[in-house]
């Protein structure tokens, strides 16, 4: 009961923090392109959220394919983890095959997230620029997914999962985990600006 309360409190902080961040973003000035467009802003945004993120569209993704793939996979797993958290009060009603599958998926996610420590520590440049916030965020997400895996496998771990989820969600607005929200803004700005200018489009001649 206490841990469920922790999760709910964390969720409330996450929602309040997210709204506060969105208000703060909206309060900042924004200069849209005013000049007659050379391309399509709408097409630019669509491209930015789809093909513009495809690994084959990015030389950087081809060069860092392990890191890129890791990033995509563990973010998808975190999203599934969020859905699992919402549905977790009804965990007993989950079919056992689904629980086993989720446990395996979250375990993979936890491993991929944990690998982030190795990637940060083994690269001298990343090690030099990494902050306590980076490591704390990695630890929280690793624990979130690991406890999700444990609770999907063994229901006795559910209170621990809720507690960790609560702490993780509560931290989101205060540290790097808030990038999840800014991501949507950044891709949208990219699409709007470069789409208007005819830079981002489905196909160049």
């Amino acid at each position: 009961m206490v841990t469920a309360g922790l999760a709910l409190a964390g969720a409330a902080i996450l929602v309040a923090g997210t709204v506060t961040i969105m208000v703060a973003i909206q309060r900042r000035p924004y200069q849209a392109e005013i000049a007659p467009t050379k391309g399509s802003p709408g097409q630019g945004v669509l491209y930015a959220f789809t093909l513009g993120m495809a690994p084959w569209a990015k030389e950087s993704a081809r060069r860092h394919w392990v890191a890129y793939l890791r990033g995509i996979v563990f973010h998808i797993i975190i999203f599934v983890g969020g859905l699992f958290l919402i549905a977790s009060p009804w965990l007993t009603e989950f079919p056992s095959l689904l629980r086993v599958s989720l446990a395996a998926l979250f375990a993979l996610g936890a491993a991929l997230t944990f690998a982030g420590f190795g990637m940060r520590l083994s690269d001298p440049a990343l090690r030099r620029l990494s902050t306590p916030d980076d490591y704390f965020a990695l630890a929280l997400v690793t624990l979130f997914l690991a406890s999700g895996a444990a609770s999907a496998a063994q229901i006795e771990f559910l209170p621990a999962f809720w507690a960790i989820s609560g702490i993780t969600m509560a931290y989101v607005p205060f540290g790097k985990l808030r990038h999840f929200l800014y991501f949507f803004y950044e891709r949208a700005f990219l699409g709007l600006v470069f789409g208007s200018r005819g830079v981002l489009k489905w196909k160049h001649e």
Partner: protein
Amino acid sequence: MNSPTKTKQNKLIIAKEMLGNLVDRRVLTALEVCVRCGICTESCHYYQSNPKIEHTPYYRAELVRRLYRRFFDPVGRVFPQWFGAGETTEDLLSKLAETAFSSCTLCQRCTLACPFGVETAEIMRITRSVATATGNAPDILVELANAAIAKEENAELFRDIYLDQIKDLEKEVQDILGSSKARIPVGEKGARMLYVPLAGAHTIVPQAVLFNIAQESWTLGMFEASNYAVFLADGVKAKHIAERITKEAEQVKAKEIIIAECGHAYTTMRWDVPKWRGSPLPFKVRSIIEVLDEYVREGRLHLDSAQNSQPTTYHDSCNLGRKGGIFEEPRRVIRAAASDYREMTPNRLHSYCCGGGSGLVAVEEWADIRLQAGKLKAEQIRQTGAKIVVTSCDNCRHQIKELSERHDLGIEVTSVSELAVKSLA
């Protein structure tokens, strides 16, 4: 008189205030979204030419990010170390200024490499603003921007000299065309196009030849297109300098402003000036490249590619290409003007900066930095086997010429307009 300590404190106060005011939605997002994954590392020509952490896009942005968090983030203000932020000192401001001006050409290649699309160039742009406001910008850029403003304020003083110079250039045009009727009109009311050149006959004579052949209704601008205040990210001065041109266009009642082959001048007039004014310009803005492309496609200009048989390649200016969407127009003209056209790899959207952009070519003491950063471009050129490198930006032209000397490329660097004149059928 202010004591040195007070001056330092004032600079820090100005830096904080400016940073707070300049961070708009795009910059705030760019500051907040980076997770320091390092995927952008090799996208930067500085890093490719000299691999060290200071040359990574995320390092540059991180310097500003930490300062911003120390000043404005609720957690960062109380626990700056949590975000890796150190003391804010005048030395830090100097380091930021040097980074923004000499270690980043705002080419935006890293933005496209980033999984999130972090606009590091936007972060560097506001850093340049802060540096300019705190007196940390390169003196030469400040002097050039001030000179442009002074030129407008004293336009009558140099007008006659300018007209005399143009008369001499007009004779050159007449000689090239073999016609005494060829003209370089200046300030002619009712002309459809106001062509805005750069300082230099190479941005006037070839274009005048082509306008005359195409029988264009045009007039030459009194002021040059370049805007050094843009490099300083000094919005007030940049707007002032740009207004010299828009005022002139209004005076002659031009329908279009045509910008010489200059990357930043085009981007400024085409995309930035309307934002600064808060409304679209009452005339169309195009690059001379777009006009030449139109002439070729409409048959107003007949080019003979057999006139230029040497291997030829094109360097995409970051401002015209990645920031302006002008990729195919120059290529169509070059293909019509040269029989052996070769692409650099990568090109267009993913083209590497030559290293000379955003004012670097004007700062003599950074010549070594920019020439080293251009090493990758030199290698790209060499791999094409081209003997002629065409570029539609004067900064790129200057940089590539110097790269050719340093790396013994043995190439000729030219503009699209000059190439077109050489291939006139």
